[in-house]
């Protein structure tokens, strides 16, 4: 019998244990299965499979008597197990675990343009029948992963990704409130905080950019190679989507309760709540045009604390506008 498995990276004890525990009921229900087939099923080499069986051979209930141990035979390439009734139980999930899985699978099934719908639906059906009435509780949990996004846009992006083709986008830049046209090489499609994003190498910006699908107004697969440059690296998204560069302007705002929605609506660095629903918000932005517009409309509900230049712009714009309203000859001017 061969010795321990050959392998590159050492396997963790927990992953081996979970394989061993899964292996017992599987083998018990398939007495005489070929060892190669079992190895394939568990994704290990035949040598590893033999090593696992050797270990099972010395496993069992406490007692140290021969009949306390699992019997394993694999002479002639076929595997037989015996005396393993105590761990002959298929995977069991607690109700809470099953519900978590159901909710997760439902969310996955709702993903627009998902390829592997069958597998998800089958797993869901099994879980729902196994949990019975308990699964009704899961209907009360809703997971939103941006289902409002046009499935065609997502499917188009995925097609381009799979075929390494370039994409043409008409994209709304929220900060400037204008539609832009650009060619991009797709890198991946991700869902973060209930929004779908396309990460791609942008030929206009000459850099990696994230595009929110609900701001993509038009998307088209081009007949051109869309392999991103070798140095294009996906962003680390753990910290969130908005990773404004440190060179962006730091803006601090004081928001009265009537403008509290602003800190939910726009990406902020920090929000500090004061008494009476007043909040102090810090955010970074490369472009202040949208902020000026926001501040005029918020009126007395918001104040720029920093930078002074932005406060001055808001003040100057408001003054200029008010001068026009104060002009006495307004109607005659425009009435012509």
């Amino acid at each position, binding site marked *: 019998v061969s010795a321990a498995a050959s392998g590159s990276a050492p396997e963790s004890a927990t992953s081996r244990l979970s394989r061993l525990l899964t292996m017992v009921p599987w083998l018990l229900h398939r007495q005489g299965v070929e060892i190669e087939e079992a190895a394939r099923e568990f994704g290990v080499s035949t040598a590893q499979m033999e090593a696992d069986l050797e270990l099972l051979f010395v496993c069992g209930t406490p007692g140290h008597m021969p009949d306390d141990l699992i019997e394993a035979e694999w002479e002639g390439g076929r595997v037989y197990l015996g005396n393993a009734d105590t761990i002959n139980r298929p995977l069991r999930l607690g109700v809470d675990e099953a519900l978590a899985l159901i909710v997760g699978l439902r969310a996955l099934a709702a993903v627009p343009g998902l390829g592997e719908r069958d597998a998800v639906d089958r797993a869901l059906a099994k879980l729902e029948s196994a949990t019975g009435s308990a699964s009704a509780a899961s209907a009360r949990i809703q997971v939103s992963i941006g289902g409002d996004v046009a499935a065609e846009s997502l499917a188009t992006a995925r097609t381009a990704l799979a075929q390494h083709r370039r994409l043409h986008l008409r994209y709304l830049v929220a900060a400037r409130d204008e539609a832009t046209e650009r060619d991009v090489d797709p890198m991946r499609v991700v869902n973060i905080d209930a929004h779908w994003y396309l990460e791609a190498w942008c030929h206009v910006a000459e850099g990696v950019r994230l595009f929110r699908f609900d701001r993509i107004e038009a998307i088209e697969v081009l007949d051109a190679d869309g392999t991103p440059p070798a140095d294009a690296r996906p962003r680390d998204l753990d910290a969130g989507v908005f990773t404004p560069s440190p060179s962006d302007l730091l803006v601090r705002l004081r928001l009265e309760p009537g403008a509290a929605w602003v800190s939910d609506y726009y990406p902020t660095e920090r929000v500090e709540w004061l008494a009476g629903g007043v909040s102090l918000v810090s955010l970074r932005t490369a472009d202040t045009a949208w902020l000026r517009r926001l501040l*005029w*409309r918020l*009126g007395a509900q918001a*104040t720029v604390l920093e930078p002074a230049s932005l406060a001055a712009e808001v*003040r100057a714009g408001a003054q200029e*506008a*008010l001068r026009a309203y104060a002009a006495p000859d307004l109607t005659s001017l425009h009435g012509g």
Partner: protein
Amino acid sequence: VDFADTEAFADEISSFGPDVLVEQPLQLREAVVRRLEGALAAHQEVTR
């Protein structure tokens, strides 16, 4: 221009700052002026 909600439309109009001027109706004009005066007051306080 037709509009339904004076306050919502005043939000939009005032966001254009000096670029848009409401002649009439008076109600909308006042709603816009109120926002701009608020913005002016809020920003004079700080920079003084």
